[in-house]
């Protein structure tokens, strides 16, 4: 069972023994030596949390704008839809600002944050992508492929999320611009609107893509928790602290 090697690594996550997480009770305890790495710079963490907050607001207000699900009834006149749209537009503006910081950080960040880290660019990464898929399907291996930064599957899914976010921003500003024809946003987006077949197609795209921001976090949070429980790196807190533990005696692919 448990080896007698002294534990130098991190304590298991606090929820590891919780009855709510049977996975935590049954996974092997941490063993061996660990060392601390710090791949996530301040701007990356900051933009992550700005994105989290604004996307939460955007999804909730966005669904309301599409189909107002609660209503003002009776009483003096309200400005419910007006305020909800205002919140949506402010959150959208903040998300775009965060996106610009992230874009800058694609060129100024460290090796785990730069543009090449968004894509599996080497052959070995594609091989590891397949291995990671087989690991998740529980066909091969007891652990994921050892990457300090994002593994190839993460790279693809996060980059896909960036792409969807860009689609959301373009389609969102196209709809926003409709209120003032001839204005900046209208002029920038109208050729695209006509090319795709009209504003309703843009609206439908915007709405369908919204669901990615519901589906993606479910998988994202699950896989982060799962990795934390089974591999004990403390990656969950890495998005606050900027770092996590890696095993000292293992060569990491992207080290």
């Amino acid at each position, binding site marked *: 069972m448990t080896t007698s090697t002294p534990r130098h690594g991190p304590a298991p996550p606090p929820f590891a023994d919780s009855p709510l997480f049977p996975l935590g009770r049954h996974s*092997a305890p941490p063993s061996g030596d660990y060392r601390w790495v710090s791949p996530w710079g301040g701007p990356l963490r900051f933009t992550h949390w700005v994105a989290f907050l604004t996307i939460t607001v955007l999804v909730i207000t966005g669904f309301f704008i599409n189909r107002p699900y609660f209503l003002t009834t009776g009483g003096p006149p309200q*400005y419910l839809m007006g305020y909800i749209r205002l919140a949506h537009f402010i959150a959208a503006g903040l998300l775009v600002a965060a996106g610009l910081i992230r874009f800058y950080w694609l060129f100024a960040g460290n090796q785990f944050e730069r543009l090449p880290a968004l894509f599996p660019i080497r052959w070995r990464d594609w091989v590891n992508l397949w291995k990671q898929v087989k690991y*998740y399907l529980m066909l091969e291996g007891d652990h994921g492929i050892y990457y300090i930064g994002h593994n190839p599957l993460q790279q693809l899914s996060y980059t896909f999320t960036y792409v969807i976010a860009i689609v959301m921003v373009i389609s969102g500003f196209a709809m926003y611009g409709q209120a003032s024809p001839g204005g900046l946003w209208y002029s920038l987006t109208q050729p695209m609107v006509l090319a795709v*077949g009209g504003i*309703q197609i843009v609206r439908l795209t915007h709405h369908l893509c919204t669901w990615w921001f519901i589906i993606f976090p479910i998988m994202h949070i699950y896989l982060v928790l799962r990795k934390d429980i089974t591999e004990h790196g403390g990656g969950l807190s890495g998005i606050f602290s900027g770092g996590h533990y890696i095993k000292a005696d293992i060569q990491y692919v992207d080290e």
Partner: protein
Amino acid sequence: MFFPTQFPWAKDQTLGEHLEASGVSRRDFLEFCGQMAVLIGLTEMAAPRVAAALEGVKRPVVIWIQLQECTGCVESVLRSADPSIGELILNIVSLDYSHTLMAASGTAAEDALHASMKANMGEYLLVVTGSVPLAEDGMYTVIGGRTAKEILIEAAAGAKAVIGVGACAHWGSVQAAKPNPTGAVGIAEIIKDKPVVHLAGCPPIAETVTATLVHYLTFGGLPELDGDGRPRFAYGARIHDQCSRRANFDAGQYVEVFDDEAARKGWCLYKVGCKGPETFSPCPIFMWNMKTSWPIGAGHPCIGCTERGFWDTMTPFYDRLPNVAGIGIERTADTIGAALAVGTIAGVAAHATATTVHQIRSRKKAAAAAEGGHDGQD
């Protein structure tokens, strides 16, 4: 030429002289000019300028051809708000050819068309209603033995400018909706070398036609257009941004189903599928049938008929978003999204369970291996 009146507009008579001869008072004429000035984006102060320009206009030649269409646009235009003068401008004074309205028919009508085109080569204004069917070599619309495409190309060749009236001329309208069996296209697909202005709508409001003609006569050219060829004075703002029910939209007051309390109070029709937020049209301002009413004013959601492709993209008319074509069955965007989200949650739960089972097995194996002598056979 047709609609014979007591006072036909003689060839070298100016419009001012003609109106005077027809018994239109100066006061009525200035009032009309003021209305038109406002419609084309000037202030009422510009009325004297418009009047001065219009008065001096010699009889313009307008040829109105009708291709694959339902004649609804002509019906709409006949209901111009100020029939006494608008009708003079549109229907009486200027049309040399319009097969719905003219008294002549058959060969006589075709002869009139050709005579007018020849006599006014390069000078006449061409108005087109209807789309151009291209499938089966254009056999879906044949007038006088010639296809719609041939007629349009011939008529456009000598035109100074082309005005497309209605959704058919704009992009094809209902006959161009999927699957578009006749291969219908808008006139701009055929006429590439001439300025084409589109008065979008199914049908457009009569005043947009009158006002475009007045603009043409006043300034000698076509009005400023938006990215889709529509005059900005009429199609420059969304119905949503000019709507009398906009306050209810902002307040969160919506009609849930037709005939509910909210509908009786005249609240916003957003939730019953109003396409006002995606439709550029002057309906709330110009209104219809001599300013009697307009669709939203009458309690019906806008169907977006001034937008390209509206039969495909604005449907279902009583819902916010288009349906997504699926395999044999159509699903709404939210059905698909919710199904995917539920599927994701189920997948995550299944995966977490499988992981737990997998971990238990791995530990048992490790324990068995650690005990040595005992053969691992689980």
